[in-house]
């Protein structure tokens, strides 16, 4: 019929940019909290959708305009703590000891993001399952789940972009995502600042050969692993029921 499919699925994508640039920007915008879109994310293939969601779920990329650097700092505190123990020293960061109070704050902040997203999505799926006539979803099923998951993730990560396809201009979504937005933006600011304050008051410990340096590749891998396990793995079951289920049914139908 003369149809050229070499560019992949172009449905919903901005024709001026093509699928590569659309996919590229969809990742950039979710990673650095820009929130602007150049294509409808709803129309992305499931794996692209997974990556967009993961970008916001991690929410610890510094350099963006959201709370990425602050969350990254929280994960560094946790990574410093675990790796400090692994080298046999009470953990210290920037010459200050990391103790119970800082760990408490860091743990709460690290918990907050999965808590807001998962609880928000749980409530919305519960409401929808109970009464599908609320009419939010045009495609119930895995894709509809992704839409609700994306909406909550985007709010918690203060991204601002939408997966779209979700009927979200109603009181339920406006109020629930509003709360998530406020909590997801301001608590992650209070926590790290509090930790900085506590650390600043502590005695400075000069660096010795026994001090664990935090500017090494090994420590980078450690931080990466902590982020992956804490931030990404907590969302694994949700991703499985959303985009991953969609992907496997599309490409590996049994």
């Amino acid at each position, binding site marked *: 019929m003369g149809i050229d499919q070499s560019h992949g699925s172009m449905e919903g994508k901005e024709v001026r940019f093509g699928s590569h640039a659309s996919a590229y920007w969809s990742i950039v915008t979710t990673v650095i909290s820009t929130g602007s879109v150049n294509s409808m994310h709803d129309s992305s293939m499931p794996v692209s959708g997974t990556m967009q969601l993961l970008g916001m779920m991690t929410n610890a990329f510094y350099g963006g305009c959201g709370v990425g650097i602050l969350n990254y700092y929280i994960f560094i505190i*946790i990574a410093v703590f675990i*790796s*400090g*123990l*692994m*080298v*046999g*020293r*009470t953990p210290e960061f920037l*010459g200050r000891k990391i*103790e*119970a109070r800082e*760990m*408490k704050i860091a743990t*709460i902040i*690290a*918990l907050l993001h*999965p*808590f807001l997203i*998962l*609880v928000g*999505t*749980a*409530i919305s*799926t*519960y409401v*929808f*399952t109970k009464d599908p006539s609320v009419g939010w979803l045009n495609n119930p*099923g895995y894709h509809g*789940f992704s839409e609700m998951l994306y909406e909550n993730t985007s709010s918690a990560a203060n991204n601002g972009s939408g997966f779209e396809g979700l009927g979200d201009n109603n009181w339920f979504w406006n109020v629930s995502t509003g709360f998530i937005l406020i909590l997801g933006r301001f608590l992650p600011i209070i926590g790290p600042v509090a930790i900085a304050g506590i650390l600043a008051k502590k*005695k400075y*410990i*000069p660096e*010795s*050969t*026994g*001090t*664990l*340096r935090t500017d090494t590749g*090994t*420590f980078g*891998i*450690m931080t990466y*692993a902590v982020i992956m*396990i*804490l931030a990404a*793995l*907590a969302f*694994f*079951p*949700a991703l*499985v*029921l959303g985009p*991953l*289920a969609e992907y*496997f*049914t599309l490409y*590996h*139908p*049994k």
Partner: protein
Amino acid sequence: MNATQNKSLFQKDLISEALKQSFIKLNPKMMIKNPVMFTVEIGTAVMLIVSIAIMFNNDGSQGSIAYNLVVFLILLLTLLFANFAEAIAEARGKAQAESLRKTREETPAKKIKEQGKTDAENIILVSSSQLRKGDLFYCEAGDIIPTDGEIIEGLATIDESAITGESAPVIREAGGDKSSVTGGTTVLSDRIIVRVTTEPGESFLDKMIALVEGASRQKTPNEIALTILLAGFTLVFIIVCVTLKPFADYANTPITIASLISLFVCLIPTTIGGLLSAIGIAGMDRALRANVITKSGKAVETAGDIDVLLLDKTGTITIGNRKATHFYPAPGIELEGFMASCVFSSFSDETPEGKSIIELAKHLGAKTQPTDEALKDVTFIKFTAETRCSGIDLANGKRIRKGAFDSIAAIARQAGNPFPSETDQKVKEISGNGGTPLVVSENEKIIGVIELQDIIKPGISERFDRLRKMGVKTVMVTGDNPLTAKFIAEKAGVDDFIAEAKPEDKMNYIKNEQKLGKLVAMMGDGTNDAPALAQADVGVAMNSGTQAAKEAGNMVDLDNDPTKLIEIVEIGKQLLITRGTLTTFSIANDVAKYFAIVPALFISSIPALQGLNIMHLHSPESAILSAVIFNAIIIPILIPLALRGVEYKPIGASALLRRNLLIYGLGGVIVPFVGIKLIDLFVGLFF
């Protein structure tokens, strides 16, 4: 670790005691101290209820009875394994402490009714447990000292082998720094009167046993911080599992309660949660095995963080005292005659230096036994701080003096005798080599110089090297002059030294280092060490030291071995490393568990998810059971590691992190993939 110690990790009687304790510890009141395992207990209770409910009314929605019962049993096993880890660590620590305490229980004591009177009427025989603080008791040759105390009268040689394992008897006497006696040790000679310093049940060993038993065991700051983090991880997974229920309802994939609880238990860090207290107890136990009594778990932990180590030169860096190594007679003096004079002058000299002079002369073939006639009518001149020399006036009028260079030089100068330039040269040479010159004069004429040298302990510089690699700075404390101190410091390889040290100097050095934010450890025995021991972050008092020193420090070394500090630092580091690596291992395990359980949860309703079942596990039930079984058995598998501690290697912090991250991080990701798959091959036969 060698094989014999390996074997003793699990002794039969310890195991049966620990097994009993594992069940007793299921009491929720005890479990709640460990938030991670407490949530597992709640999960186990829920599974018990679900299993019972299914027995009466099984509509099939929760899976088969067998499946539910097996999940319940495995969760119960997980709890028991974790309790067993703690119980076996406790049992081992207790057994170690009890064996030390056994020697001191119920020995008869000769209590003195009235101070100052030791006649038969005033001494009554009581049991050691009836002695109270402040009581006086009397001990003579052959008696076992009933309890800890301080000698207030007399002097005795005491066999402390029951406590220290050291067979050479020691001398303890009233007053001074060696006045303390320990219960359980035996008096070999003489008689002493001792004042009891501790109430029964409050001795250091009693305190240590209480620490191990958990009654008074408090979590250390680092343990608290780790517990918070682990509780955080647990909370994340509570959220994950609770929200999974509405998600699954939405996707029309009903999840059984058993599967949901299994997922939860597998994800939360049960491995480290179950082993955490065992690791802490094992740390104290390892210290006890090194014959060090710690007054708190925190002290062991702090030891791992030590930046500066203050070590006394004598006994730690050098063997005992200085020894004579050479005789250098002045020009025109025969070596034989010079040696004879030196020997004469040293006969009344009871100091180790004096004895070593006689030894060296004997070794070089000098006649060391002067006849009785020669020693008739002699006058011994004792060493005093003012004259700084000692000597002898012989019957034939010969006056021999030996002492510090300047004091002997002054004697010669006063008599108008010159100081030979060759000898002067020698004196400078000896000082420059870190030795101490002892100048000898006869009838106010310089006849030569004796070289005294410190003997540096073999292998000590390697130990300092190891400490340097750990990032610990070593400081030598000595009464020597700065020149000698510097030479010995360089030769032994310590980083810094305090020469001509007074007790205040130690204190000031510690304070200055602490101002810079460093943690300082020191060892001491005397009462004048007590303030410094209290000021130091880790103060190790020698058991032979005074009561004041023992009260001030936070550890007591039963062996009185000054190099023990080095071991203590390593024990502390090992404790933290074991915690860190097992935490990493525990969390890294989650990756494989996710891939085992999550596909299994949904596969029956979303068959396409088979693509996520990368381990090709047999069935959803077998996948979930394999993950839970792996999660349970990894705890007992790691108990030996938790008790023994992960080995510490002084290779620098970054290299150590890389090594441990590879072994316990990457290993923690890979091992469960293999383990779960292997278990599934077996479980798949039934489910």
